[in-house]
């Protein structure tokens, strides 16, 4: 199968795989920044977004941590119970 000419792996310099297009670059330069201010206004987050994010991330991580601890305790309890109820190997005593 022929290699994909657009395939790019991380670490490759992208420019090496993309032939230059001066006309495209010129037009990009000419239109640079014209929309930035309006886009920024459009995409501005609501007030308090950072605090809400911090609270939610905190809750999520705490819940995961609590869940992991509970699972660990359950596993330990199960192993302990298994040891207590399993038949004792008498070691060949007559």
């Amino acid at each position, binding site marked *: 199968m022929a290699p994909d000419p657009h395939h790019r792996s991380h670490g490759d310099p992208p420019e090496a795989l993309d032939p230059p297009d001066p006309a495209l670059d010129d037009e990009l330069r000419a239109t640079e920044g014209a929309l930035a201010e309006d*886009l920024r206004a*459009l*995409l501005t*987050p609501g007030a308090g977004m950072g605090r809400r994010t911090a609270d939610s991330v905190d809750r999520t991580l705490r819940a995961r941590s609590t869940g992991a601890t509970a699972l660990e305790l359950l596993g330990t309890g199960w192993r302990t119970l298994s040891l207590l109820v399993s038949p004792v190997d008498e070691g060949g005593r007559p």
Partner: protein
Amino acid sequence: VLDRQLRTLIDDHAEAVYRVAYGVLRDRGLAEDVVQETMVKAWEALDDFRGDASLRTWILRIAHNTSVSALRRRRDLATAPEDLPDVATGDETARRAAGREGVVALGRALDGLDELSRSVVVLREVEGLSYAQIADALDVPLATVKTRLLRARRVLQAAVEGDGAPHPPEPRRSRRPQPHHQEEPPHGP
């Protein structure tokens, strides 16, 4: 008390993540959900961050992928037009915030772009990433970044100037999941 390093991560990057998420999803509530999900993913995978891109680029890559996944979930769940988010809500908020009609037109034109183009626009115009950084964050060729950006700028500029946006390349409200350039982030969680 939130870990200080995590708090710094959120303070430094949450707004940029929100802009990418809102750019892709065009729904403020979902965008905040994506910010939270992205921050948890980034925090949990921080030890795997290899430093071959900047931390900002790495986080924005996670944000883009998380946003696209959320967009697909929303499309999969949507069964009726009334279940789809009201795009005008975001526009209305923007109009109140900015007080400019151009912003409203820009929002509508942004809705008409495909999600990859929206991310390219946000990462370049708002976040100021280089073309190479955008290509790395979105895992697409550099030429794709440039052509998508130029096409998007033409559409958005026409909308802002009131010329009427050209026909968008991909209708946004398709019910079917759209094919996309990548499934999972190459390095991010």
